[in-house]
């Protein structure tokens, strides 16, 4: 197993709850993502949040991204662990939005301009276009890009202006096998770009999310002492998995390993039982 150790927190959710019109959607969610360090390796990490459809994953995404304040609780990000604000966390939404009225290079430039002076921003954009294999497409409009190019562009745009933390909301939803492989490849590329890069996947695809993640949290409903379902999705202490510690992370083609498949089956049983 690759040796690793955890350092300072990069994302902390503390007692996060959310209600809409009196209906509790999320209840008392606490989770902490720590910076993972692997000696002699420049690699960030992937963190997975699994939840069934309609459980409130997108609400959680918006809260983590600082787009909606939670009803109670806090979200803190970065080395300083400051309360999150919109723009601190890159959020790539399900349909990989870009500004349709700007060319790809302009889309990236707009994001880069937040952190860099105009000349430096142009250099950053050129470097990202090359890194994401988009250098031939800088002058194209988003409508002229293929699905894969658009995904890479949307991720590059968010990376250019976020502080190493990037959130992907349902990145595999509605994609065929080849496209899922493409997204997986992009995610791994992002983690190798900088050892501080942390990709948070929020998804209902349990197998793919588990295969990519170093740490996994399962969102679900809890029952009270009488066996009644409590309102609002949460993450119980039993549903936090250190996949790296279990030897199920950082393997190429981990999905083909019997141990991985047994673990995914166990997770599915947990989900069904809830």
């Amino acid at each position, binding site marked *: 197993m690759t040796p690793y150790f955890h350092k300072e927190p990069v994302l902390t959710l503390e007692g996060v709850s959310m209600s809409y019109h009196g209906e509790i959607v999320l209840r008392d969610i606490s989770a902490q993502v720590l910076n993972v360090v692997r000696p002699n390796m420049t690699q960030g990490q992937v963190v997975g949040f699994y939840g069934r459809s309609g459980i409130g994953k997108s609400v959680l995404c918006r809260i983590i991204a600082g*787009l909606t304040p939670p009803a109670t609780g806090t979200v803190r990000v970065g080395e300083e662990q400051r309360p999150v604000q919109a723009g601190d*966390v890159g959020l790539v*939404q399900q349909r990989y939005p870009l*500004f*349709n*009225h700007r060319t790809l290079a302009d889309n990236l430039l*707009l994001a880069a301009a937040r952190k860099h002076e105009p000349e430096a921003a142009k250099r950053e954009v050129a470097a990202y276009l090359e890194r994401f294999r988009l250098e031939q497409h800088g002058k194209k409009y988003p*409508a002229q890009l293929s699905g894969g190019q658009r995904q890479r562009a949307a991720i590059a745009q968010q990376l250019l*202006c976020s502080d190493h933390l990037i959130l992907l909301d349902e990145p595999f939803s509605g994609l065929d096998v080849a496209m899922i492989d493409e997204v997986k490849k992009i995610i791994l590329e992002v983690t190798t770009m900088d050892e501080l890069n942390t990709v948070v996947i929020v998804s209902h695809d349990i197998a793919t999310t588990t295969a990519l993640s170093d740490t996994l949290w399962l969102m679900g409903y809890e029952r009270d002492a009488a066996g009644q379902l409590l309102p609002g999705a949460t993450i119980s202490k039993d549903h936090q998995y250190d996949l790296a510690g279990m030897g199920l992370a950082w393997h190429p083609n981990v999905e083909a390993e019997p141990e991985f498949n047994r673990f995914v089956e166990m997770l599915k049983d947990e989900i069904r039982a809830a």
Partner: protein
Amino acid sequence: MPLEQQTHHLTFMKELFAPNAQPSRPVFATMVGAQLLVLVLLWVFYPLQLFPSLGQVLRALGDLITAQGLIQELWASMTTALQALAIGTVLALVISYLTALPFFRPIAYAATKMRYLTLTGLTFFMALLLSTGHQVKLSVLVFATTVYLVTGMTSVILTTTREEMDHARTLGLGEWRSFWEVVVLGKLDLMLEVVRQNFAIIWTMITLVETLYQSEGGIGLLLYKQNRYLHLDGVLAIQLVILATGALQDYVFVLLRRVFFPHSALTAAS
């Protein structure tokens, strides 16, 4: 006709009546040409002679151009129309964009409902407020244009999704900058389309307004005079000129959209 050729023609015909079919450019052009030809033949050979004949209309057109200054009158109306459109567009854009602030939403709502106001009483109030006929004419046209444009523009703004705004916010653009990027710049092509669609309303209004304030002439006044003396050939000739001008205007707007917003056609096609 050989069987193969007959089948070929049948396939073309089927294509023209199949839902959502995309006939090839030559087939479509032939179809439009045939429809025009039928229209002209109907006009020439229609036995009841409800309309003046094509020859009469062409003669009237020649007379209107040479003796009654049709081109000059058209130009006068066109400049007034463009002036009203420019002012109306700026006003409508300001009112529509201000809906971002809750304080201004009732104003935009009221503006959209003013489409239902009749202009007859309104011209009277405007005449009291303004000094010259031109000002009254222009303000009536601006009013009518603005209320129609605000309706179209606010509905364009309402198509903004949370996903679009969230995308801008996650880039740290802030609320006003996100609004600028998503709603103003992102939908400017659609705003131009709203302007194009509503330009026609000015031409329907201009006839009424030019007859109320006759000092400056205009094609509306010319039309009114032809109608008054039952010169139906002249009426038809002017209507056809207005129709052709409108079609040309539409084309110019499409051209402007293509030049200034090249992404627009791509998004529509995708």
